[in-house]
């Protein structure tokens, strides 16, 4: 099966590569770009752990082939804040116990970041709906809800 040349811009860096068409964007990020902050839970679009921003929009990177991201801009958890700093959403997750084991956290942070960009004063119901595409097995979600509510109140949120 013919490999395909692509160039994906990941966290501001051009990443030219030649890939098998069946390689998902998630596997491209993890295995070819060595950005292992994007986690893979279910690999069929249910759990949301692999959520990244594709041209600014939150998507499941396990449901996008790398070839479909040719020419696109991708932001992963590694690119959400400058090195050594936390984004407002990340800081809120830390402050409000929005994570325990951390497996689902990158997906939640990316989803919440995109959600808060589009919803400035979200109600709790809207936050719950906005987070419903991400699964967490540890927290019971209350800490995550509180974190996103808090991040919504910060200027950069």
């Amino acid at each position, binding site marked *: 099966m013919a490999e395909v040349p692509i160039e994906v811009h990941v966290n501001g860096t051009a990443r030219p590569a030649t890939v098998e*068409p069946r390689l998902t964007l998630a596997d491209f990020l993890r295995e070819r770009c060595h950005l292992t902050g994007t986690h893979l839970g279910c690999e069929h*679009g249910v759990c949301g752990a692999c959520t990244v921003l594709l041209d600014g929009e939150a998507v499941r990177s396990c449901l996008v082939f790398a070839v479909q991201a040719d020419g696109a801009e991708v932001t992963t958890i590694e690119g959400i804040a400058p090195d050594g700093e936390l984004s407002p959403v990340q800081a809120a997750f830390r402050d409000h116990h929005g994570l325990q084991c951390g497996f689902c956290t990158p997906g939640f942070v990316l989803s919440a970041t995109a959600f808060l960009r589009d919803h400035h004063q979200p109600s709790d119901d809207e936050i719950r709906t906005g987070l419903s595409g991400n699964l967490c097995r540890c927290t019971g979600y209350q800490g995550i809800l509180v974190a996103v509510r808090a991040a919504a109140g910060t200027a950069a949120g």
Partner: protein
Amino acid sequence: MKPAPFEYHAPTTPAEAVDLLSGLGDGAKVLAGGQSLVPMLALRLAVFEHLVDVRRVEGIRGIERQNGTVRIGAGTTQAAIERSPEVAAAVPLLARATPLIGHFQIRNRGTLGGSLAHADPAAEYPAVALALDAELEILSAQGTRRVRAGDFFTGLWTTAVADDELLTAVTFPVWAGRGGFAVDEVARRHGDFALAGACVAVGLDGEGRVDRCGIGLFGLGPVPLRAPAAESAAWGLAAGDVDPVELGRAATADLAEVPDDLHAPADYRRRVGAVTVARAWRRAVEEAQGG
């Protein structure tokens, strides 16, 4: 959870896309947003030798208000439909069904045409297309043909689109006058496919009698369905004289192949289906009476 290998094609024009499809035959599948196809490939429920990605194909995206209709390119994302003021104003049923599809991350990729061509019997858009009598434009090397939604869904996950054809656009009629529109569904979790659901479009004349009515059902058979018996029972009656519970019963009484699985037995689904019809009817009528 890795798809089997396939060849990738990314045509840039509709003509190029259908030429490819016609040459590749049934070993090829159209890749639109991929939110249904890619999970099926990952689980290897489906295997194709070729995927024809339509993301670069020109002219199959966008929302256009025309004379009495709204024409939406098949490649338009559900997110774009959700955000569109034209759709909200002119095709409220489509607008109201959209937030029920998956999650916002799914709707950022998923497309109108992808939903309809995938034709999941529990999905919202096929039932909306049926209830509104939408018309689908299907392109092949021979040209464009138009198929009414009522003739489009031919079997489980099967539509009128042949292997060498591409769904390019969908036209929804704009209901003038006093209309009301509502979708109701029961799903186990937000964003899941519904166990059962219904969408209702109702129009009232000057005296408040039902003079137009479309009821779409999803999750209640191997294909998305309309409820003709319930529709004709309501037709011509004063809206206030229609008993929503009775209407729900009429809409679901004759269903022959209600899914029966570990999530819900058929009897339960049928009862839930009747309730969703009744709820959607009440809301639609309320809106039509207020408008």
